[in-house]
């Protein structure tokens, strides 16, 4: 994985000093809150219901064990012993004190971490497929290009005061695990000419108030032109994105207003003008330099099936259940990708305690070439584990409560912090996730239901990705009472779709019944191993409307 050189270190150190200075100026009254707010947001510091909230960047969701231990240290030393992994592969701390933030950032900088640009109207964390470099069938490792974009977008002099936040996601695989089609820019690595990587570049996707699927704006853009093309999109957006209305300021609104074709024309026009006094062509040497950081680890040559692993599966039912859902195929024989579930039944989705983080750091170091990843679905991944080690890894995960065998099943929900934490929320979301999780706790039942992605947001800002849930739940405020509106048929992968609202919202005491009814309706209608989303695509929304509302 990427390691800072002296230049990266200098940049982060100087910026930490800058922010410390800004905090001092704020506390001394030289900056008003109005002036300080955009500056603290650019360093990931929010003001929430109970306290400040600090969002630390985890570039493309990749961490070393040392970095994970530092995240544990921050949780333990400056916060209340836990952190929350987010839908942008970052981590959030809910209780930092403003006066401690410069120290937190200084500590993070010692392991090449920071909170730069995790908020504010700038280019945010570039996210990527969590199976990068491990899954078979990948055209190229998306983290290489994510790292290149990260550097280029950090403290960009022209693009630090955009109309609104800007989110980029990258995948190198035909099966999109990074939800690229609902990002401001989504990048799919494809095979270019001469077998070199090239990029299909999508723009104008997003969720929130006006969810939209991104449009293809540039096809097979050559590798060396990546920054140049992204620069063209950014300049069109910076100059023409709306500045008059906060709710209409994302690039998706601009793309929609112009029409995808006209927007693409303007981008290509700008691209053709060849930059502005700069040469954005990526030198082969720099691509190679960054690529080297993501070289495959020193895999052993192993048989495709490890006998110890096979034996453990047969001997230990609980282990077998876990292996059934929480493992993904690795491209190298004898290895596996391990998903660490942060969705314990009845627990808080995406939260991890400092001791869990430390234990996971140890696992990463001992069993996964010192690497752990964060997924946008709020789980973690150990990307390269030998099959022969899986039983031991599982036992250790089980000992810390991170081995719930539910990846991709109904209890593996995305849940935003909601009204329990968030200043923007209209309703609680965590508790809804908990009661649904508890209702469907029976493992056999969960397996019978199969793949079903429930995504819960506590407000229209959609940090819980409800628009792209197979079942999406949106918390709303109806005359002071928390209500929950359900949508069906959303999807975040390469067949991305925005869910359809099924009908009037439900109160908290009815929401579990509603989910049960939806599940039962699916089970009654499904054919031939259809997943929920397959059945929904075949039957449409009507049968679900009927069962949910006809009796009313």
């Amino acid at each position, binding site marked *: 994985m990427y390691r800072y050189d002296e230049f990266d270190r200098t940049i982060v150190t100087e910026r930490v000093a800058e922010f410390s200075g800004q905090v001092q100026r*704020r*506390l001394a*009254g030289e900056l008003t*809150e109005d002036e300080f707010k955009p500056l603290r947001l650019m360093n990931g510091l929010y*003001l*929430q*219901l*109970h*306290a*400040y909230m600090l969002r630390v960047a985890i570039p493309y969701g990749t961490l070393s064990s040392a970095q994970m231990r530092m995240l544990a240290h921050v949780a333990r030393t400056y916060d*209340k012993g836990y952190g929350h992994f987010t839908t942008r592969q970052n981590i959030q701390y809910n*209780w*930092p*004190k*403003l*006066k401690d933030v410069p120290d937190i950032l200084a500590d993070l900088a010692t392991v090449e971490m920071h909170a730069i640009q995790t908020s504010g109207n700038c280019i945010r964390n570039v996210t990527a497929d969590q199976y990068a470099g491990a899954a078979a069938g990948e055209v190229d490792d998306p983290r290489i290009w994510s790292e290149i974009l990260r550097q280029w977008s950090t403290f960009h002099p022209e693009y630090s005061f955009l109309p609104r936040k800007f989110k980029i996601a990258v995948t190198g695989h035909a099966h999109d695990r990074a939800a690229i089609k609902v990002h401001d820019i989504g990048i799919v690595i494809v095979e270019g000419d001469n077998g070199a990587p090239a990029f299909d570049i999508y723009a104008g996707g997003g969720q929130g108030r006006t969810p939209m699927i991104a449009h293809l704006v540039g096809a097979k853009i050559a590798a060396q032109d990546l920054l140049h093309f992204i620069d063209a999109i950014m300049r069109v957006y910076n100059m023409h994105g709306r500045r008059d209305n906060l709710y209409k300021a994302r690039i998706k609104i601009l793309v929609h207003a112009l029409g995808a074709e006209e927007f693409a024309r303007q981008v290509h026009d700008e691209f053709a003008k060849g930059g502005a006094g700069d040469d954005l062509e990526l030198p082969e040497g720099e691509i190679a330099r960054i690529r080297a950081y993501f070289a495959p680890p020193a895999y052993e040559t192993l048989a495709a099936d490890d006998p110890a692993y096979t034996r453990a599966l047969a001997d230990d039912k609980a282990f077998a259940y876990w292996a059934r859902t929480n493992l993904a195929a690795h491209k190298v024989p004898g290895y596996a990708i391990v998903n660490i579930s942060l969705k314990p039944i009845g627990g*808080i989705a995406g939260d991890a305690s400092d001791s869990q983080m430390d234990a996971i750091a140890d696992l990463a170091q001992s069993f996964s070439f010192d690497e752990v990843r964060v997924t946008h679905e709020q789980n973690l991944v150990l990307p390269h584990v030998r099959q022969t080690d899986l039983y031991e890894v599982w036992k250790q995960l089980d000992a810390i409560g991170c081995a719930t065998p539910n990846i991709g099943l109904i209890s593996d929900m995305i849940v935003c912090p909601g*009204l*329990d*934490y968030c*200043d*923007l*929320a*209209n*309703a*609680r979301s*965590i*508790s809804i996730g*908990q009661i649904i999780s508890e209702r469907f706790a029976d493992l056999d039942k969960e397996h019978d239901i199969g793949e079903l992605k429930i995504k819960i947001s506590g407000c229209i800002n959609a940090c819980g990705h409800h628009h792209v849930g197979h079942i999406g739940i949106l918390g709303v405020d109806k005359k*002071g*009472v*928390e209500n929950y509106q359900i949508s069906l048929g959303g999807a975040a992968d390469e067949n991305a779709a925005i869910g359809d609202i099924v009908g009037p919202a439900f109160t908290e005491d009815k929401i579990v019944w509603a989910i049960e009814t939806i599940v039962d309706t699916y089970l009654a209608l499904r054919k031939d191993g259809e997943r929920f989303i397959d059945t929904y695509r075949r039957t449409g929304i009507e049968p679900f409307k009927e069962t949910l509302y006809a009796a009313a």
Partner: protein
Amino acid sequence: MAQHINKKARFHSLTANRLLDGEPVYLTRSHAWSENLHDAAIADGKDEGAELTQIAAQSVADRLVVNPYLFDVDVDAGRPRPISVREQIRATGPTVRRDLGKQAS
């Protein structure tokens, strides 16, 4: 920031976050800031609400608090009771972690 004030509501209290550590605080009758909702002054009507707002503005300028705002309350034996779920949660702590926030002390 969500809107917390119902124009028809009669009683309001005023809250903010402490600048240094983000702790929710409430403006008291003696114009001090308390961590406890129990101590919050109750404004009866728009004019009294405006008075609280003015005092809060001075505290902002004095760098004690940030983001002050009025919120609707009912009066219960002389004490303010928040009407919105949001302010109830803010006064106690996250409902899903009863060991954290004000409710824990």
